[in-house]
């Protein structure tokens, strides 16, 4: 009997294991989107950024808490470090200069990032090659015309060479987004100049932030330079408090008057009705006193 029971238990166990394995195998794994980018900000601080996301019902959702490994070299020769993705699925690795980055044959750096995957998410990897670009921005005034000059150079095999033919967009910051005001194409010397418009509003002191941006460039990645200068028109955004409108704190006078007349009219009648009820009560009390007096007399 016990042998028979044992056989049944074995059978149930094997079936359970089999079902578990097959269900695990059947479970669809996530194929994430993986992007590696190179950034260099206005302080010449470079960093690598990896974005790990996946698609669910056609919505791109982040994968937070995943460990991303960064490498440099064409064959992932040198590990740069590991970073965990944040709540937006982004992992950033600063290139702080402590590691000497090996140059490739054309003087470029090659970076790799790898996500090793897990039970539910597929392994993914990406690589990019970038050439280090040094971008300089100079603001000047020539006969009261405001000019923006850019100069760009790169290091190839230890030599400083001008960047030729690349396009840089010039923006100014606005409340919600960047406003493009022109573009510069580098000449043979790696320089370019544009006139800056003189009628752009700035803050109350006329300060305006100017940006030169190279975005998603296949050779140089993402480079940005920004500078703040008093090149805008001073603007005051304060609305006079006395201004009456639908959208200000103080409503139009006609609204206050209309509402006041309506409410006082209505509540005046309510008060009349309530006073009438009070008088009915008073009359009843007076009648009661009179009746008691008559009875006594």
């Amino acid at each position, binding site marked *: 009997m016990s042998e028979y029971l044992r056989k049944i238990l074995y059978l149930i166990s094997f079936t359970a294991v089999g079902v578990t394995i097959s269900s695990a195998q059947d479970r669809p794994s996530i194929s994430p989107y993986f992007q590696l980018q190179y950034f260099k900000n206005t302080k010449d601080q470079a960093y690598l950024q990896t974005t790990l996301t996946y698609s669910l019902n056609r919505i791109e959702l982040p994968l937070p808490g995943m460990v991303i490994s960064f490498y440099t070299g064409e064959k992932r020769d040198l590990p740069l470090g590991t970073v965990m993705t944040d709540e937006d699925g982004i992992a950033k690795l600063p290139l702080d200069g402590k590691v000497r980055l090996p140059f490739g044959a054309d003087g470029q750096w090659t970076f790799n990032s790898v996500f090793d995957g897990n039970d539910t998410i597929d392994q993914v990897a990406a690589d990019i090659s970038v050439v280090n670009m040094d971008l300089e921005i100079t603001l000047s005034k020539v006969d009261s015309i405001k000019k923006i000059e850019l100069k760009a150079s790169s290091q190839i095999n230890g030599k400083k060479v001008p960047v030729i033919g690349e396009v840089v967009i010039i923006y100014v910051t606005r409340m919600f987004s960047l406003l493009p005001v022109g573009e510069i194409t580098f000449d043979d010397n790696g320089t370019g100049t544009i006139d800056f418009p003189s009628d752009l509003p700035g803050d109350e002191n006329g300060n305006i932030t100017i940006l030169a941006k190279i975005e998603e460039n296949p050779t140089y990645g993402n480079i940005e330079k920004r500078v703040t200068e008093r090149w805008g028109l001073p603007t005051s955004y304060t609305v006079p408090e006395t201004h009456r409108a639908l959208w200000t704190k103080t409503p139009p006078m006609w609204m206050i008057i209309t509402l006041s007349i*309506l409410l006082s009219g209505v509540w005046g009648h309510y008060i009349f009705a309530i006073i009438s*009820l009070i*008088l009915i009560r008073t009359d009843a009390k007076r009648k009661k006193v009179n009746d008691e007096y008559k009875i006594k007399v």
Partner: protein
Amino acid sequence: MQADRKLLYDLTPELTRTSTRWYITFFIFFAFFAFGIYALILQIDKGHIVTGMRDNVVWGFYIVNFIFFMGLSYSGALISGVLHLFHTAWRKPVIRLAELITVISLVIGPFFIFFCIGRLDRLYFLFIYPRIQSPITWDVIAISTDLVGCFIYLYLSFVEDFAILRDFDELNVAPWKKKLYRILSLGYSGTPRQRKLLSNARTIMSAMIIAIAIIVYSVLAWIFGVTLQPGWHSTIFGPYFVIAAVFSGTGLLIILMWIFRKIYHLEEYITKRHFVNVGVLLTIIAAFYGYFTFSDYLTKWYGSIKMDSILIDKLFNQYYSLFIFANYIGILLPGIIIAIPKFRTIPNITIAAIIALLALWVNRYIIVIPTLETPFLPVQDPRPDWIKYTPTWVEWALTMAGVSIFAMLFMLVSKIAPVISISEMQGKDQSEIMK
């Protein structure tokens, strides 16, 4: 204060005894109400995700119910105010019902706004940071003003009855009820001065209540009308809403007349003539309401503004059945039933009223929902539930709870005071009233 004894014997039995059927009916309504409370707790716990409302369609059943109940309230005020002001003789058996519709609906309606608000904890901001430029602020002021006015008006109509009930020695009710009658009657004994004071107050309040009802329901309509949404941005929305409200209220009045006539055996007081009179009123209002509806949609259709055209196309396709029911069957059928003398029986008029009431609720639905399902900007990720509103069981449960509490309050009030005003009925030419 003495009253016609026959009237007292006929109208007060329901105050002294409560049948098993009454308890069962009350319990059924209470069960629906309790289920609604469960749904509400679930909604508070889980959030609005348990409803069909989403980012795009932010208003659903709750706003529809809010407009519907508020409409019933204002129509009750209008009907009772007009009938009182013009001293219509046949009004007397039905005016109390209209007054009760006013107050009970007005108490229930605003709760649906609370169900709709995501951050109830910030509700008091409406009072501490009011902006009188906002129609929402107008609505808060208007509803609270109307609520106070309706309570005063209802109370004024009850004072004489409370005095009669207080002085009716043979009324075998609980001591607390007697005490309540004594307190609420304010010592009224019908002296000439008291009569004059009460009469003046009632006349003024009846006129006031008509004006308030029109203004307040117009304000509610303007919440929609002042927006630039397709289907809502209409200059006739104010009067259109008021007429629609009276239409639904008249329908409800007929239904309540039928119910209370049946269960409280008031056949002698609420006669076929009353049904026909209120029914004719319903037909006349249906004609106006139909005219406003046609006018509103015609101008939108003829104007051919892109979003209006999309909306009208949606109404005639996606919402075809509801649109036909609300704006054709709901208007024409009650009119036909009541207009043809052969069909004018009490059950037929009541059926016409039920159709009118349901049609009006559906009309509110197709005013609110299809517009929100027609956004100006295309939605990037058109998941069905972001665009298409589908009410969940939670919303159905709270809707049923609203209907149930309406019925329960009516049942409870009918145990405190007669549903036909004794003071209105007594001392008049009974034959004139019954006509």
